[in-house]
């Protein structure tokens, strides 16, 4: 424990200081050379390393994954032979692929929408509090954002815990239900609820993010338009749905798509809770399982599926973001 902590601190300090020294040294060198050379080279000195890092750790692996998807998982005579579309056929006929795809779809539909709804409700209610109270409430709701997915899953494990009868239920949820005489439920195994139990963790984490952005957007709605609607005879509900919501629509879309992309890549929560058991498998965990087994071919195919799914949402998001920026 002690050495782990020490290693961590050393890594953080060395990393930060190292990067600083690296850029400082490069900068000093270009400045010493000076003249036109400095002008031309200086921008590259600063974003060159970033481009290099992205290329080495993102672009190269991406193309290597595509390459790997056409080669066999098993070694023949010391190397993986080219198998064409064989991996694709195997993956696409595997029922777990379709379970994963179906689950991802479910996550995409439920989580962003619920996070936005919860975030919106909290943002609206918090807006009516005094500034001091509002800050406290918003900080609390935002707090889960600061926890890692694994940490969040660990916290929720305490909520979802089930003990074999006749032991006392120590999980918060089952203990609570027990007070009303409800039989304990195995939240991770019950096929009706297990997907939603996992999604709840993600919603809990992302509602804070949604709330912060939506709260800022709501505060940006001119008070005059709300008062004008009041005078025009709108009820508070009508004001919210016909005047406020349309004015923050672009923010809602950005929040939705941002969470959606996060959800598409959902991995940690499933990994540390069910690891895909009970039909809770999702794509990211599915291909990770392939990689663990050294099945780079089939794993690559699943990754490509995920990338293809993410792409349209990324485009929508970037486009929306630009529109919003243009409005400012």
């Amino acid at each position, binding site marked *: 424990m002690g050495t782990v902590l020490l290693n961590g601190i050393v890594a953080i300090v060395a990393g930060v200081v190292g990067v600083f020294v690296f850029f400082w040294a490069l900068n000093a060198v270009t400045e010493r050379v000076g003249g036109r050379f400095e002008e031309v080279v200086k921008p590259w000195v600063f974003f060159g390393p970033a481009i290099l890092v992205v290329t080495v750790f993102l672009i190269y692996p991406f193309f290597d994954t595509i390459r790997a998807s056409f080669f066999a998982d098993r070694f023949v005579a010391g190397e993986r032979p080219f198998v064409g579309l064989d991996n694709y056929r195997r993956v696409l006929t595997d029922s777990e692929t379709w379970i994963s795809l179906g689950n991802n779809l479910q996550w995409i539909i439920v989580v962003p929408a619920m996070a936005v709804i919860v975030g919106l409700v909290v943002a609206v209610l918090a807006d009516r509090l005094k500034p001091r109270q509002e800050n406290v409430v918003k900080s609390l709701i935002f707090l889960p954002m600061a926890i890692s997915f694994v940490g969040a899953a660990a916290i929720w494990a305490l909520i979802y815990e089930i003990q074999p009868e006749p032991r006392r239920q120590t999980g918060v949820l089952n203990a609570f239900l027990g007070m009303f005489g409800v039989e304990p439920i195995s939240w991770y195994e019950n096929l009706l609820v297990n997907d939603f139990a996992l999604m709840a963790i993600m919603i809990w984490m992302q509602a804070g993010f949604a709330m912060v952005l939506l709260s800022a957007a709501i505060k940006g709605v*001119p008070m005059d338009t709300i008062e004008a609607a009041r*005078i025009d005879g*709108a009820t508070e509900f009508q004001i919210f749905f016909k005047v406020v919501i349309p004015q923050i629509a672009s923010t809602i879309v950005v929040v939705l798509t941002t969470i959606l992309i996060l959800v598409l890549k959902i991995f940690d929560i499933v990994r540390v809770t069910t690891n895909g058991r009970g039909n809770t498998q999702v794509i990211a965990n599915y291909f990770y399982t392939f990689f663990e087994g050294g099945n780079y071919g089939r794993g690559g195919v699943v990754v490509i599926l995920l990338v293809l799914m993410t792409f349209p949402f990324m485009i929508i998001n970037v486009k929306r973001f630009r529109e919003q920026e243009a409005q400012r």
Partner: protein
Amino acid sequence: MAKIVMDDIQKVYPDGTQAIFDLSLEVDDGEFVILVGPSGCGKSTALRMVAGLEEISGGKMYIGDKVVNDLSPKERDIAMVFQSYALYPHMSVADNMGFALKLAKVDKSEIERRVKEASDILGLNEYLHRKPKALSGGQRQRVAMGRAIVRSPQAFLMDEPLSNLDAKLRVQMRAEIAALQNRLGVTTMYVTHDQIEAMTMGDRVAVLQAGRLKQVDSPQQLYDRPDNLFVAGFIGSPSMNIATGKVLKEDGKVYLELDRGETKLEVPDEALDRYPKAADLDGAEVAIGIRPEHYGPPNEVAPGQVWKNRNVELVEMLGSEMLVHFRTESAPIVTEDMRAAIDDDEMFEEIKKQAESGGQTFTARFEPDNPPKVDSKIDIGVKTEFLHLFDAENGLALR
């Protein structure tokens, strides 16, 4: 359409500050009343209380015969035009105008008809499908007006509707709104800090200062017969020249002593008829008000009305007229009332500085011929029959 009655209205904020004191004001059916005053005088608050956007802390508010104190804006059936126009950015011009009717579940064809009617009046026909973003300031202003018109409400409330427009457009819209109100005959309350709007647009003008109603009257009455120093100083541009002086009675005639005894101006009976109390104040300090246009060449007034040996400090040639700034040794009135009336802290500080020296600069408006030289001494005729006299202590007109 209906009349609006404010009966002893109070506004106290939760932190205890009082924004409106004992405001009583009647706006007749179809009348156009302007609320005017320096910034922070409570005029917008008063309007918002009529609208129902601000709670009424005391007194009774009537629209028509109904007490509306506890009614929501919706139930008051009034339309409001905001300074920012407050158009719904996500709705087209037509939807903006028809929103209130849509909420009231008016027939679609009826909404269309009324929006069309309003857009005909306002010249908005080509813009009905545009979003507010794609309109100019003047067009947005018209849409805001249109939104009020389509509803045929009990009353129009307008909160500085022209202050976001450029000067030229403001003059045009000023005339348009006045004409429109005249044509529609809707009871209208209009808030502004611009006294030219106040003077030109309304049937009557209510002048507010620090939450209190100082005077309500027709624009000309307000200008000619101010009830107090605040109204005297606030209405009119350039402002009325105001200084302290003494009333003296000699040989059955009344004189004003200025420049600490150096100047004596005769006050004719016309002025005393308007300010009868002044005649009883022999030897008392009063506040004297002279409008810039009530000066003239010395040969146009009686010999007792010539103000001699004035030092010229500045001459402004404005084409149609000439403003001559000259020195008097009579002290200005330096009170919070006057600060509010001037509504310009910098200028007030300047006057305060001048007050320390015991005198101040007056402004006279002349025909633009033979401009005097700066730093020369001139004689100025004062048409004292038009002057104004106020109690130096409480600022009330000496009537």
